[in-house]
């Protein structure tokens, strides 16, 4: 169920965000299904490849998409010890390929994007691991399920921990999904972009795959949040997704992106939140209030 959602509806999620953003500024906006139309239009097209590029450029978008799909399988279908490690490393494999594909064109803009992408997302993994590691210490479960089990523990500090974990995960969505305040998906000025600039030379099917993969990645992290908040009811899952889409749209409508040199501060906030989660977990365990 969740798997099918993640597989089929990522564009709906993006469409929703775009619609909300349009409503915010008083426009009618594109239809919610617009990303789907774009996707199918791109899928039907041929491609333009750069002269400089090699086989890497051709296979990278497909590998990136495949990695995201496998990450979705890991997150939604199965549970085993250390599944989050595999999840995060599979996504890293996708990132590896998208970075070298950007470098493959020999374009300085794409090099810029690739360089920024690896630099700014380098702190996502440690933050993610510290949070899940701390929660694993708390619940004694070594898989994603430990996050889901968190809400069952009725303790004031544990609620705080869940909130902070959700906050950090939300920050990760914004970084991994290249949204405001890290990156602006709307802008088309090459010098200031991160994710968009990496895919300047992609077209046709490859571009469709890239859009699909990045939308799915956002939905994956959102699913993670939804599962922490309310793992039992299916309707709650949809509600949480809606709320997240709303939050992202709100941030993009009322805020601007931060200066590139300050993005690093943002990522350090994320790491700090992760460290606070860790200390709170230790506090709870030391206090012995755990149910």
């Amino acid at each position, binding site marked *: 169920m969740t798997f099918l959602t993640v597989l089929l509806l990522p564009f709906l999620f993006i469409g929703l965000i775009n619609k909300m953003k349009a409503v915010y500024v008083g426009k009618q906006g594109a239809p919610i299904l617009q990303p789907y139309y774009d996707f199918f239009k791109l899928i039907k097209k041929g491609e333009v490849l750069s*002269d400089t590029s090699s086989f890497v450029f*051709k296979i990278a978008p497909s590998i990136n998409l495949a990695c995201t799909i496998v990450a979705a399988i890991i997150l939604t279908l199965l549970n085993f010890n250390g599944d989050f490690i595999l999840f995060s490393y599979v996504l890293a494999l996708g990132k590896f390929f998208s970075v*070298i594909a950007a470098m493959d064109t*020999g*374009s300085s803009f794409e090099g810029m994007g690739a360089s920024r992408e690896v630099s700014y997302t380098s702190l996502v993994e440690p933050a993610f691991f510290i949070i899940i590691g701390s929660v694993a210490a708390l619940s004694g479960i*070594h898989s994603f399920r430990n996050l889901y089990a968190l809400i069952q523990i009725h303790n004031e500090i544990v609620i705080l921990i869940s909130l902070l974990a959700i906050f950090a995960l939300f920050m990760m969505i914004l970084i991994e999904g290249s949204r405001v305040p890290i990156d602006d998906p709307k802008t088309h000025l090459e010098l200031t972009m991160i994710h968009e600039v990496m895919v300047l030379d992609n077209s046709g099917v490859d571009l469709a795959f890239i859009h699909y993969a990045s939308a799915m990645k956002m939905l994956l992290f959102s699913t993670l949040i939804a599962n922490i908040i309310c793992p039992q009811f299916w309707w709650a899952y949809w509600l949480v997704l809606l709320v997240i889409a709303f939050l992202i749209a709100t941030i993009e409508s009322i805020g601007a992106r931060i200066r590139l040199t300050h993005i*690093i501060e943002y990522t350090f906030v994320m790491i700090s939140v992760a460290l606070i989660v860790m200390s709170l977990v230790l506090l709870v365990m030391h206090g012995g209030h755990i149910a």
Partner: protein
Amino acid sequence: MNFIAAALTFKPIVSILYERNILETTVYMGQLLKDVAFRVDALSAFFIMIICGVGLLGTIYSKKYLEPYIEQGKKLGSHLFLFNVFLASMLLVVMSQNIIFFLISWELMSFSSFLLMIFEHEEKEVRQSGINYLITMHVGVMFLVVGFILMYLKTGSFDFSAFEGKISELVFAIMFIGFGIKAGFVPLHSWLPKAHPVAPTHISALMSGVMIKTGIYGILRMLLYMGKPTITVSYCVLLVGLASAFFGILYAVAQRNYKKMLAYSSIENIGIITTGMAVAMLGLAYNNFIMTMFGFLGCFLHILNHSIFKTMMFFNAGAVYTQTHTKDMEKLGGLVKPMKNTAILFLLGSLAISALPPFNGFISEFLIYIGFLTSFSTQNYFLYTIIIAAFGIIAFVGAMALIAFTNAFSIIFLGSPRTEKAQHVKEDVSIFMQLPIIVLAFCSLVIGLFPQRYIDLVVAPVQQFIPFSVPYELLTVISIFNITLCVVILIIIGLRALLLRGRTVEHRETWGCGYQYPTAKIQYSANSFTRPFLGFLTPFYKRELNFTQIKELFPQKTSFKSRIIDIFEYYIIKPIVIVDEFIISKFYWIQSGHTQRYLIYGVVFLIVAIALLIGGKI
């Protein structure tokens, strides 16, 4: 136990024989067996397997690699002889169980590798790094000698087996430093990034893939005799492991010499191996044996994996060097077109070394992570704090490895050629040079896809430390996922090909924002690629900038140079050397160069010796 060991050594022994046949060397080991204890247990056999495997591939590789040198009229006889001595001495190191013989083989190993390293001794840089290496190794040996003397005084035996349960914390610490210099732990690593770039490729592959592991072997051997390590020692080892991993990969990111980059990445991997060992030690110290099991499995598997992918990467680097004659990444680019096979192999190696699935590096790191997670069943809050922090650091190291290797791969192979050196490359290296790399790539993929089968290679040495049952189920799950990943990747690539069938695929120049005449110089360089990342880690390295500021209205020419300096070398090694030089300079007068004075020394010595003798007698 012996049976497992015997079964395991069967393969290595076959390969030793195989190697002797190929090389027609005099690697003969029977003579010393008579008087010196000489045991091959599972731990030794494991290392013998690595030494023989990499040694064999190195031999095949060196044949083609050395060909250009033969054409230049270089004499290779002594080099090849020393190569065999080097292999033999490494085997002797892991097999001998006697203090004296161990030290002899250890010295032989250091010395032969030194001579091999200075193959291109005409160059000043090579000689300097060589001497640096030799001196550093002897500092290491000094620690070992002290450690062994202490052990001898305690046990009264030269045989290792007498050490059982008698190794104290102090001895372990001394040995750890001694072996650590060989292994290249931060901050004892300064020889490594100097030695690897100057050595010929097959030698640096052997040194990095195998020789530095003999340091790890020594520590593991001591650990085996130590029994239960104390908590403090275990934490110290963890700290050293994490520091090596972190600083190793940080400096790897900063390098533009690709062989130096690989050398620093060796430090990182040694750090990960040591972290695995530390997890195991903590498990032993806290009586959490599941943790010990995962720690050791990860540690040993990573030793094997590192020797596979690091050898592979050095061989690839050698292939690039043979074709371009430069070790500077910034001078390369666009090599993917003429050297497609090498590019693919380099890419596979980079994926494996960045510990990405479905390759072998991921499996060992995964086991270490699981080792971290299993520590949470021990009720100790200090342990929790440290482990969670270590968890984050290793994850960060993984992210940095990704930066280092995306950087290296894309700057060397992708884009368009940056200088003439890269432009002139017309063809790939010969298939004989690629064959060993293909074998290694295959091993790396197979271990990654079927870890549940190849974990057996490391089970026997781990079982020497603790008895356990192998976690096959977990590895099977990973194996299924890795295979799924490959299948999904193939499906999507197939889907793409299907979609594009019959459609137009045009080739145009890269989009340059409307700019029509791009040159290779406007591409992103390695320096600029890593700049934003290194920008926020400034406290951990020192950047030396050297550029002339533009002052006039019509500037003529300006230059910019930046260099990353290893802080350990700058703040620790350098002051020690300065102090040392100062002290030693006070004794210069002893060596005056006058033969008469030396004769007086001799006479004085004799008189003193005789006086002492007589005095002692009476």
